[in-house]
């Protein structure tokens, strides 16, 4: 059917060993039959399939399946455990945050209380100071008023003397005569309506 050079031909890799181990003529089963339907090979195939697959099944069910199953289960457990741990830590963190918040609120309350007291105290002190100062000022004012009155009285008292002297001088200049001090004083007293 095809033109093929021997170099390209696919040869069975086992042919080399084959010729050594197999008697001449026994190279292939059944000669020209289509190999998959060559029933003379069935017994051998079935036997070796049973042996190899049987061993394979045993190995799988005894070793591989438990091992991989164990690996996967271990991993699943580990992940679940880690998730639990993470949850626990998160709860702890939440609790810590709540405690912190509470403490913070308390501290704020305390701080505002302290500030309030300080303010009250300062206010009271200021009030006291103010009262004291006012009292002092009042006292001073009273003193001042008193001294003003005294000065006024004194001044008024002196007014009479000055009036007497002035009147005496005026009378002396105008009338050329002299008047007694007692007359002038009486006249002034009359003038001022006293």
């Amino acid at each position: 059917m095809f033109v093929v050079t021997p170099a390209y031909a696919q040869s069975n890799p086992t042919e080399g060993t084959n010729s050594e181990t197999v008697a001449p003529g026994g190279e292939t089963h059944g000669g020209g039959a289509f190999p998959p339907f060559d029933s003379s090979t069935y017994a051998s195939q079935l036997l070796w399939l049973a042996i190899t697959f049987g061993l394979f099944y045993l190995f799988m069910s005894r070793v591989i399946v438990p091992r991989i199953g164990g690996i996967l289960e271990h991993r699943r457990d580990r992940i679940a455990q880690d998730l639990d741990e993470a949850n626990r830590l998160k709860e702890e963190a939440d609790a810590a945050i709540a405690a912190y918040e509470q403490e913070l609120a308390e501290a704020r309350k305390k701080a505002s209380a302290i500030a309030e007291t300080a303010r009250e105290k300062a206010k009271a002190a200021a009030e006291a100071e103010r009262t004291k100062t006012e009292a002092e000022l009042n006292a001073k004012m009273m003193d001042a008023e008193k001294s003003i009155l005294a000065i006024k009285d004194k001044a008024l008292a002196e007014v009479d003397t000055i009036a007497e002297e002035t009147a005496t001088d005026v009378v002396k200049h105008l009338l050329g005569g002299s008047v007694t001090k007692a007359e002038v004083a009486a006249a002034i007293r009359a003038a001022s309506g006293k």
Partner: protein
Amino acid sequence: MANDPIHQFQITRLVPIEIGGLDLSFTNSSLFMVATVAAAAGFLFLTTANRGLIPSRLQSVSEMSYEFVAAMLRDGAGSQGMRFFPMVFSLFMFVLVANLIGMFPYFFTITSHLIVTFALAMLVVGTVVVYGFWKHGLHFLNLFVPSGVPGILMPLVVMIEVISFLSRPISLSVRLFANMLAGHITLKVFAGFVVSLGSMGALGIGGAILPLAMTVALTGLEFLVAFLQAYVFAVLTCMYLNDALHPGH
């Protein structure tokens, strides 16, 4: 002979053994069965040897194949089906690795022989029948009597159900066998075109590009088929096992 697309399915004796007139020789097929089992078991064993909590890449491959089959079985047969997990997992890995090993040039594809796939299919159906009768007794026969069917149609429906049940091992085995056989023959034929065109001088080498591209594409397709057929085999196994677990539809 050398370019015969059927030649690759030839079984040759490596160690002739004959017991009681039966030819039980260790053949190239047996050799590749051993290779398949050794490769699959070795891979699964070595990659999971560390039992890493954080898997290495290869350990992930093993775990993924495990979880892939586990999910398949759980979906197909429910959580009760998990008792068959080692069997389904073994079947899947065996067929998959056998198909993949068959993709190497010059390698023998053990699943391209009907008797092998038929034996695997009979293992599945045999498990279904034995477990079904052991677990449910004669109630297992309810499998063939769907509920809600009018009495007059019942004989017909039961007949159809029985035939469909009996054809299961055949369809299960022929599907895998025919896919592998046809795929490898097609590959060989197109690769043969490359060779025969290539030997026809410069023009032929130019013309050989087309079948070569086809061979490359088919190789990719065959890898897909190798996986897909292993998957289909395992999925159908799960569905049949579901019948053994819950025969009452």
